[in-house]
């Protein structure tokens, strides 16, 4: 177990290192000189040179890479090019929106998708099953940003129940903030609920076919006990894996959904930084997100290994 853990952690770390190189290389070739962007249409050659030096862009790339890396290890992310203020608090501020959004969306997906999947497996081949399968097909096919737009059309412009966008801030208006996250959470969570319901269903049906379940049945255990007592517990293993993967997708989905509802989250920060050509923010946010996804995958792997003690070859 310890060896497995070490191996997993090491590969995650190596992956992260490769990611830093990849991000650095891609952003180094970004057309557009941050100094030029800062000075805009009034850029003069000598101004440009001064600003470049101020940002450290006159140093060789390899040196800049290592300066960045050593800063990362100390959580010193440097100053934003555009705002001239430290980046770490900027990102922290945005995570206050994105993390609750992603967590609530995953919770929503679990609360909706899991029971539906169980229901479908329970009622396999009956109307309930078809209903759930239809829901899941639709849920997978509908893009989350369009679903968000439809929610705005129906529930905020139509019924006036929720704000069409924006975020008042947790400190200023807690309940208002929560209210403004309702539609984004649904938009982000429902397609995932659809996927989850499918996976729960098929994974439960798989377990139901296994020998020990048949034995339990043969011994006369009631259908419900078999379903919830045995099948669900064992079906949870692949479900946990998928929920882990969801967090990774949430990050991508959050970028799009934040832009539908204008939520000041990490996605919008990336978007604004692209507009400001604030490479240093993009660089760090991307790496932090990657580290987050890797960490979650690592945890999922560990949970998986704990739930399923059979020795596994790394898939």
């Amino acid at each position, binding site marked *: 177990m310890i060896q497995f853990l070490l191996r997993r952690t090491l*590969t995650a770390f*190596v*992956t*992260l290192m*490769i*990611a830093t190189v*990849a*991000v650095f290389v*891609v*952003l180094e*070739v*970004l*057309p557009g000189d941050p100094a030029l962007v800062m000075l805009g249409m009034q850029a003069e050659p000598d101004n440009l040179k001064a600003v470049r030096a101020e940002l450290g862009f006159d140093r060789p790339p390899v040196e800049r890479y290592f300066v960045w890396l050593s800063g990362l290890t100390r959580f010193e992310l440097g100053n934003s090019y555009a705002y001239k203020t430290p980046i770490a608090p900027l990102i922290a501020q945005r995570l206050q929106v994105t993390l609750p959004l992603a967590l609530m969306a995953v919770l929503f997906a679990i609360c909706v998708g899991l029971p539906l999947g169980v229901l479908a497996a329970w009622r396999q081949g009956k109307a309930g099953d078809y209903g759930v399968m239809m829901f899941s*097909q*639709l849920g*997978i*096919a*509908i*893009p*989350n*940003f*369009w679903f968000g*737009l*439809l929610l*705005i*059309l129906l529930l905020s*412009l139509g019924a006036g129940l929720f704000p069409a966008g924006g975020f008042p801030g947790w400190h200023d208006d807690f309940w208002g903030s929560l209210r403004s996250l309702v539609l984004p959470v649904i938009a982000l969570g429902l397609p995932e609920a659809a*996927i989850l319901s499918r996976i729960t269903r098929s994974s439960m049906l798989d377990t139901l076919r296994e020998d020990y379940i048949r034995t339990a049945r043969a011994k006369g255990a009631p259908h419900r006990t078999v379903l919830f007592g045995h099948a669900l517990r064992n079906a949870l293993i692949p479900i946990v894996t998928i929920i882990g993967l969801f967090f*990774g*997708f949430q*990050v*991508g*989905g959050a*970028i*799009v959904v934040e*832009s*539908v509802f204008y939520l000041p989250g990490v996605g919008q920060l*990336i*978007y604004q930084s*692209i507009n400001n050509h604030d490479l240093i923010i*993009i660089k760090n946010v*991307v790496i932090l*997100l*990657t580290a987050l*996804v*890797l960490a979650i*995958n690592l945890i999922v792997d560990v949970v998986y290994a704990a739930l399923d003690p059979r020795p596994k070859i*790394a*898939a």
Partner: protein
Amino acid sequence: MTAIAATFAWARRAGHHVSFVIGLTLTLFLIGTALLSLVWTPYSVTEVSMALKLKGPSAAHWLGTDHLGRDVLSRIMYGARNSIVVGFVAVGIGMTLGVALGLYAASRRGWADELISRLSDLVFAFPAVLTAILITTAFGASATNAIIAIGIFNIPVFARVTRGAALAMWSRDFIRAALAIGKGPLRITFDHVLPNIASILIVQATIQFAVAILAEAGLSYLGLGVQPPLPSWGRMLNDAQSMIYLQPTLAVFPGVAIALAVLGLNLLGDGLRDLLDPRLRVMRMG
């Protein structure tokens, strides 16, 4: 003779498979619309006519007109073409490279396998939209770059599926027998492994096609895909959002188009899987 009979039997089975039939119908409709848009659309997709702007659905313009008076139906038809091109090319890139890598990893094992697995982990660790945003900011927003970004994301999907399926093949007796009579790994891969995993690749490709259409719509919605004035479904939805108070129907139809296209491909994929081999394990990533 038996082959023909088998085909007939298969076709009859397929004809009774509801998802397959619906999926195939929707997919053919999508492709048909795209092909039709090559030769005919009711109106020009780029010509502006301000007198007609923001009209609702009518006999002349079935789905209404946009903020510059352009026919929405014509633009959705053109958008179908765009979606199909993106899907084909992105899945093509992902499949060619991914299948090659997956087959190689499965036949060689060892460090090559490890390296390929770790690289695909790396791509998965980046959320797909983030990869696309990085690529399009670095090299500019264009249809081509969006396709490349989606294609890159498809590589590890195919690599993993291929590797898994191929590994299972390599442990089978008939391949061991082929090895024993001195066939090289390359020959075995092409003669035995690839044909035997083709069905899962076809199913996976159908699913990835749907995923690619969704991803492209998302990127275009963010303004990172096809450039104006040429229409794409995602961009149309973006334009529609600021017109939502004036003409809400604009925000409906392109979304319906995306949903129908993706639904069709997914149903087709599921149907194909059931018909080819119900035990196939596909990935649903995006």
